[in-house]
C-alpha cells in the first residue's frame, strides 16, 4: 500500500523575497529580481546582470557559508510551518539536500598560485570550515541546525546540477511514499554569484550577456540570450498524510508523482528530439496515476537558453499532443533567474502556492515570442485559474531530467479520470 505524501511546510530565500510569502507575492505580481552586477567593476567582464539577494542578512562572522546560511533559513521556515519542533521521537525523519560545491574563492586561488605548496603548511582551520567544503555532510548539519528532536534516518546530499532540486523533492517523496521515513525535508541552496561561478557558466555559453536588467531574462522570446545567474535556497516538508493528520498539521498540497530520466547525450546539451524530457514527464504522470488530459499547469524549467526553450516546448507537445496549446506554462526564471541546485525546490514551492491559490504566475519579458515556441506561456500577467494537477520540470547539466507532479490537496483524492 503506497502512502499519500503531502506538503506540510514551505520556505524560501529567493531574489524575490526572504520568505515564501513575499516570494509568492512578488512572483505572482510578475516582478523581476534581475539587477546589474555591481560586486566588482564589470567594464571588461562579459556578464553584466545577476539575480542576487542583497537584502539577505548575511552574517559575515558566522562559521557558515552564504549557501549554508540561506539553506538554514529557508529550511527553518518550512520546518516552522510544519511544526517540526513538536515532532515525536517516534517519527522517522529524512533530510535530503540539493547542493553543489562552492567554486574556489578568488583569494584562495591566488594564494595557491602564489605558493603552490601552501596546502602543506595550511594552518589548522575549523570544523565549520571543513563542513563548508565537504557538502556531503551538510544534510546532517541541517538536522542539527533545525534541532530536530525526531531521530534522523537518511541524510543525503545530491548534486545533479540544475536538476538536483527536483530530484531531491522526488527522492524525498519516494522515501515517504514507501515508508522509509514518515516525514522528510527536501531542501536546496546555491550561491555562485562570484567571479569563478560566473566564468564557469560563461564557458558553458549559457549565461546572457544582456546589459539591461529589465529585459535580461526572457525565456521563449526570440531575443533571449541565455539565463541570468541567481542565488537562493528553498525547502519543502513532505509527510505521510496519516502522520500529518495525527499531528494535526494542515496539508498545503500533495505530491503524487516523480519521473526521472537520463539523456546520455552531451554534458551541457539536450538531445534535440525532446524524447528524454517527454519521457520524464510521462513517467511522472504514470507514477501519479494521472492522464495527460488532467494536467492544468506546467511550471517549466524555462531557463531562457535557446536550446531549453525549443526542446522543452517540443517535449510538452509530445506529451500533450493537441492539448499542449491549452495548458498554461510559465517560467519562474523569467523573474528569479536560475539558482541552479536551488531552482527545482524553489519552483516546487511556487507550484505548491499555485495549486493552493489557483493563481498561475506569469512568464515576464515575453514580448516577441519565438515562432517555434507557440504554446501558452502566460505572458506578463498572472492568471486566475483552477489548478488541480501541476507539473514542475527541471533539466540539468550532465543529462538529468526530472518532473514532479504536485496536486491540490483534497481529503479524498480526486478520482483518476
Amino acid at each position, binding site marked *: 500500500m503506497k502512502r499519500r505524501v503531502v506538503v506540510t511546510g514551505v520556505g524560501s530565500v529567493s531574489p524575490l523575497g526572504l520568505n515564501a510569502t513575499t516570494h509568492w507575492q512578488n512572483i505572482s505580481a510578475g516582478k523581476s529580481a534581475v539587477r546589474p552586477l555591481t560586486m566588482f567593476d564589470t567594464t571588461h567582464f*562579459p556578464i553584466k546582470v545577476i539575480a542576487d539577494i542583497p537584502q539577505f542578512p548575511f552574517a559575515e562572522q558566522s562559521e557558515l557559508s552564504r549557501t549554508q546560511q540561506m539553506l538554514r533559513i529557508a529550511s527553518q521556515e518550512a520546518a516552522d510551518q510544519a511544526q517540526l519542533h513538536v515532532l515525536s521521537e517516534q517519527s522517522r525523519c529524512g533530510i535530503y539536500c540539493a547542493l553543489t560545491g562552492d567554486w574556489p574563492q578568488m583569494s584562495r586561488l591566488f594564494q*595557491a598560485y602564489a605558493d603552490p605548496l601552501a596546502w602543506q603548511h595550511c594552518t*589548522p*582551520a575549523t570544523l565549520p570550515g571543513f563542513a563548508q567544503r565537504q557538502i556531503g555532510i551538510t544534510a546532517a548539519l541541517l538536522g*542539527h541546525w533545525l534541532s530536530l528532536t525526531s531521530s534522523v*534516518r537518511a541524510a543525503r546530499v545530491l548534486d545533479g546540477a540544475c536538476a538536483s532540486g527536483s530530484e531531491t523533492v522526488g*527522492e524525498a517523496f519516494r522515501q515517504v511514499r514507501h515508508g522509509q521515513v514518515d516525514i522528510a525535508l527536501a531542501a536546496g541552496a546555491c550561491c555562485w554569484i562570484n567571479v569563478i561561478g560566473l566564468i564557469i557558466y560563461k564557458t558553458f555559453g549559457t549565461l546572457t550577456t544582456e546589459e539591461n536588467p529589465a529585459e535580461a531574462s526572457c525565456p521563449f522570446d526570440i531575443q533571449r540570450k541565455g539565463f541570468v545567474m541567481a542565488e537562493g535556497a528553498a525547502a519543502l516538508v513532505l509527510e505521510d498524510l496519516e502522520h500529518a493528520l495525527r499531528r494535526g498539521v494542515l496539508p498545503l498540497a500533495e505530491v503524487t508523482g516523480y519521473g526521472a530520466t537520463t539523456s546520455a547525450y552531451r554534458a551541457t546539451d539536450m538531445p534535440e528530439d525532446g524524447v528524454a524530457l517527454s519521457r520524464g514527464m510521462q513517467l511522472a504522470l504514470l507514477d501519479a496515476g494521472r492522464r495527460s488530459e488532467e494536467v492544468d499547469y506546467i511550471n517549466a524549467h524555462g531557463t531562457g537558453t535557446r536550446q531549453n526553450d525549443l526542446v522543452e516546448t517540443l517535449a510538452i507537445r509530445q506529451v500533450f499532443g493537441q492539448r499542449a496549446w491549452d495548458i498554461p506554462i510559465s517560467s519562474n526564471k523569467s523573474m528569479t533567474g536560475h539558482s541552479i541546485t536551488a531552482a527545482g525546490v524553489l519552483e516546487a514551492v511556487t507550484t505548491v502556492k499555485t495549486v493552493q491559490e489557483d493563481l498561475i504566475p506569469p512568464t515576464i519579458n515575453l514580448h516577441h515570442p519565438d515562432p517555434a515556441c507557440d504554446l501558452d506561456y502566460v505572458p506578463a500577467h498572472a492568471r486566475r485559474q483552477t489548478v488541480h494537477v501541476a507539473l514542475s520540470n527541471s533539466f540539468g547539466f550532465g543529462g538529468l531530467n526530472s518532473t514532479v507532479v504536485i496536486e491540490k490537496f483534497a481529503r479524498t483524492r480526486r478520482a483518476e479520470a
Partner: protein
Amino acid sequence: MSSSNERNTVVITGLGLATPLGLDLDTVWSRISQSETAIKPMPHYLPGRGGAMLEDFYPEEHVRPKRILRFVNRATSFAMVAARNALEDAGVSEGVIDPERFGIYTGTGESEMKPEIYFPALEKAIDEQGQFNLAQFAQEGLDQLDPYVGLTSLGNNALCYISIVHKLMGPSNNYVKSGVASSQAIAEAVQALRYGLADAILVVGNDWLTDPWALAAYDSIGMLCTDCWDVAGSMRPFDAGRRGPLPGEGAGALVLETAQVAEKRGAHIYGQILGYGEATDTWSFGAPPPDGGVLPLAIEEALADAQVTPEQVDLIIAHGNSSPGGDTSEAQGIYHALSGRLRHVPITSTKPYTGHLGAASGTVETILALLMQQHATVPPILNLTEPDVACSLNFVMNQSLKCAPNILLHIARSVGGQNAVIIIGKDLAALPGK
C-alpha cells in the same frame, strides 16, 4: 513496511574495480590474500605521510572513447574503468538491457576543479604591484582558461560521461562528498529496482582523497595520520596504537538488476542486496559519539528492511577507518546493536589494504565482501595486533578466517554523523522469501 511479495528482489550481476590494489578482481583479491597493502609513502608530499594511489595510472590509457579525455577529471577516469569492468562482467553490452530501463546512481567524492587549472589565467592577472587585478583577469586572463574547466568540475561529471558512453538512460542520481555517498547510491538503486522503476542500475562510487586539496581539508580538522613512522603499517583499525586514517583513491562499480531480469537472461548472480538502513547523529559532527550514537538504529533499520534476523548475520565489514574516536564509537555501536552470541560475529575491515576510499567505500567494500563469499575466506584486519580495550569484538586478526559467510553486513560512516548499512546475501535459494 512492504512485504517481500510486492517488491522485486535485487541481485548483483557485475563487479568492477579501479583501486590502488589493481584494476581487476583477481589481482585485487590475490594481493589481499597475501596481506599486501597498497598504502605507501607518498613521495610528492612531506615525509611521514602515506596513502594508497593508483600507480602508473594514466587516464589516456584507460578512458574510452579518447575524445572525452579532456572533459573528465581524474576521479571520473577511475569511475569509468570500474564502470566498464562491471558492465563487461555482467555481460550487459549495449542493447542487452533496454537503455531506457537502465539507470545509473553514483556516489562521488572529490571532483571539483583544481586550482592549477586557473594558474595560466591568474598569471595574466598579476599587476605591476604583484597584486591580483580583476579587470586584468577579465581582460587578459579569461582567454587563457581551459574552455572545459566547467565540464571537468561538474559535480556529476562521472555520472554524465558514464551514462553517455554506455547509453544508460533510466533514472539517475548523484550523492556527494561523504564516506556514505556510494552506500546511499546503492540504497536508492535498490529502492528504484524494488518498485520497478528500472530493470538494471549501474552503481558507481569514486573518490580521490590523495588529492592535495582533499588532504588539506582533512588535515585542517586533524583527521589524517600525518606523522606515520611506518607508513604501510599505520592504518590499523581498532588497534590500540591507531592514529588516524590514510587516504586512498579509486572506484568501484556494481551492476544491480531485478532477479526476474537477471534470471531471464541467464546472468551470473553474485548475490543480493537484501536491504539497507540509515541513521544520522546530527549532533556529532567531527566527534563520533563514544557510545556509537545511532549506529545501532541504522543496523536495526537495515535488518528490518532486509527481513533478516540479527542471528542470521555471518560477517560484519566494519567502516574501521582507524581514527581514535571513530573506531571506539563504531565498536560500541556494533556491541549495542547485537546481543548475546552475536557479539561473537566475526568483524573485518578492508581499509588497511586500500586506504580510506571515501565516497567509493560503499561500492568497493561491497565488492570485496562478495569476493570473500566467493573464496570462502575472510581476510584479517591488517596491522591489528593489540585491540583497543574499548573495542572488544570478535575481530578477524593475524590470519584469514576460512568460512563461507552467507549474510554480510557492511557499515559506512561519515564525519557528519551519517551511518549507512547495507546487507548483502549470497545464496539466492537459501534466502528468505525464495
